[in-house]
């Protein structure tokens, strides 16, 4: 299946402004998206954003589906779904 990864704000510097089409297995979860992110972008992401050993984001980077944060990596993904990726601005 295909899903679309849309990054917001500063993350566009690394993932591009346009939504990225990502091909996954027919049955896939958020965890599988992380593996694909590691494969395509893992080497280019700065270490403050990405932990290459754990293959996961660092700090306050969140996946959003329908504008709500999804933290359970077992969340199933559907064909055509848009997943947003956002780094929370937390500075005072």
């Amino acid at each position, binding site marked *: 299946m295909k899903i679309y990864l849309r990054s917001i*704000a500063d993350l566009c510097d690394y993932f591009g402004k346009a939504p990225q089409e990502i091909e996954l297995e027919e049955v896939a979860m958020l965890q599988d998206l992380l593996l694909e992110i590691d494969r395509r972008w893992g080497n280019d992401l700065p270490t*403050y954003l990405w932990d290459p050993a754990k293959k996961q984001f660092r700090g*306050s980077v969140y996946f*959003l589906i329908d504008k709500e*944060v999804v933290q359970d990596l077992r969340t199933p993904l559907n064909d055509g779904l848009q997943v947003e990726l956002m780094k929370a*601005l*937390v*500075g*005072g």
Partner: protein
Amino acid sequence: MTNNELTGFAGQQLRVNLDIWEAFAEPISAEMTRKYLGGAGYAAKLLYDELEKDTDPLGADNIMVLATGPLSLSQVPGGGSLTLCFKSPLTDIWGESRVGGDSAPELKRAGFDYVILKGASPEPVYLVIQNGECEFKKAAHLLGMPVSEKSAAIRKELGDKSFAVLCIGPAGENRVKISSVMSDDRAAGRCGGGAVWGAKNLLAIAIKGAKNIVVADPDRFKKSVKNTHAIIKKNPMFLGLKSAGTIGDIPGNDDGGDWPTKNWQSNSWGKGPALYDHYEANNFIKGFGCYKGCTMACARWVKVKDGKYSTPEHGGAEYESISCFTAYVMNENMDAAVHSTYLCNEYGLDTISTGAVIAFAMECFEHALWKDEDLQGLNLQWGNSEVLPVLVKQIAYREGIGNVLAEGVRNAAKLLGQGSERFAIHVKGLEGPAHDPRSGKALAVAYATGNRGMCHIHPVEAMAWDRGKLDWGLMEYGLPDPNNVERWDENRKGSAVAMLQNGLALPDIVGTCKFYMYGGVTIDHLAEMISALTGWDIDGQELLKSSERVINLQRLFNIREGVTAIDDQIPERVKAVPGFGKYSKEEACGISNLKDMLLEFYQTRGWDPVSGKPLQSKLKEMDLI
């Protein structure tokens, strides 16, 4: 006597005459309340009416208002918020400083929405406000105590640890113009409120109450509060602040060009990630909420375990504080930064302004502007971490060059002369915080036009919209979609900033923590909670209009003190392409046409672009004449 026309408020304000140790309660004005809502809004009306032009900020005639808002209630998301309003001794214009903690909810429970301080006590004094009464207590024995010791001593004297205590440290006692009023480890840091208290011989206020606020529609209020809490729990900003604290943005802001470095010579450094990693591994203990009922818990409990910067466990290591003691001064030692900001809190100094004046001092040292006898052997080389705690202490006690730096960066440059003004980074006398308009141009307009100057509270939404792509639910009220805005563009930024200011001044007017708006509380949520609380039928549009009215009134306050459009500027250095770092080759990063952005802003605001005054038509529209 309580104002019975108002539901949802304590209904009284406490007037304190420190000259003669007299305090009395009076009903709050129902008309002013509906028009200005509360917090910095009600205080703006009061100060505009009762302060005369050219009042000496450190004289007995200056007035300070401690203001709650209608939503300063511990069950409300962000309800632990008190705003202090006064004429600033640092800037000589509108002074406003917000602090978290329990003092605002306790003040309401004690029976008051506002405390209005005037006069100067003939001897050191502290106030005890409890259940509708105000007691004056001699305080000479508290002089010189650092903040934690003073707060503990007062609670011990009162035999009750549950008092909310606001106090100043030695810096405020010494009338340091960058001193703060502290609520334990939370600070009303900016604009020199600590010096105003020091000049009034007021060392502390202890507050406790047991009354409940009467709610107009309890079921609706409970439901609206519950709904708002439920919504923010799924918001990325709420979760980000909860998991990382404000300091969590250091690596990203460094990477994104939003981290003023070496006294604003650059907007990035590249050392942010390593500094943050050290903090996370060595200094961080746990997160906590600064007031009872806070679910966000963005505050950080930190320490430096051992070594020359050994520091006890304390609440601190905020983004702004640490940035001003690392990147600003090129300090690569996180332990030194944590220690120095802890000292600032203990002495009662604003961490932002203190870091900024130290950066100024270092640049003056680089250019050999200090005399040897002034320095007394101090090595102010960029990045010298050892000198940071030394300078913090000198500023707090006005020792050595600390006596010059204690005046704030604008005044320090005047005293030092020799062209040092070019190293003094401020707007209207307030030192710049740790966000850089070269990362998002809207921030340049916000810094230039903020009523209290180059602050980190009111303008920062411009950066968060421009670069962070936040909208706070304001798009339905006319804010352009941030996702259609390029952060380095200068077009359409001026008009957007006016809307952003109107929307994001609201937390300090209604009495909530602004981070909760970053975390998903919208204008509509605020309107619903206020309507249920007060019985008013108020909507987002009316809130925005009230906020715009308040911004205009604060502007009138500043105009009366001599501010014109000429003062709506940012330092040349802050407009220039960075001298080094990730963005030094990025021409688009520089700010090329602030003038046009400002013209657009004035037009949207309805302000004269030369005098800077709100036009008569705007004043009529705002019901200010």
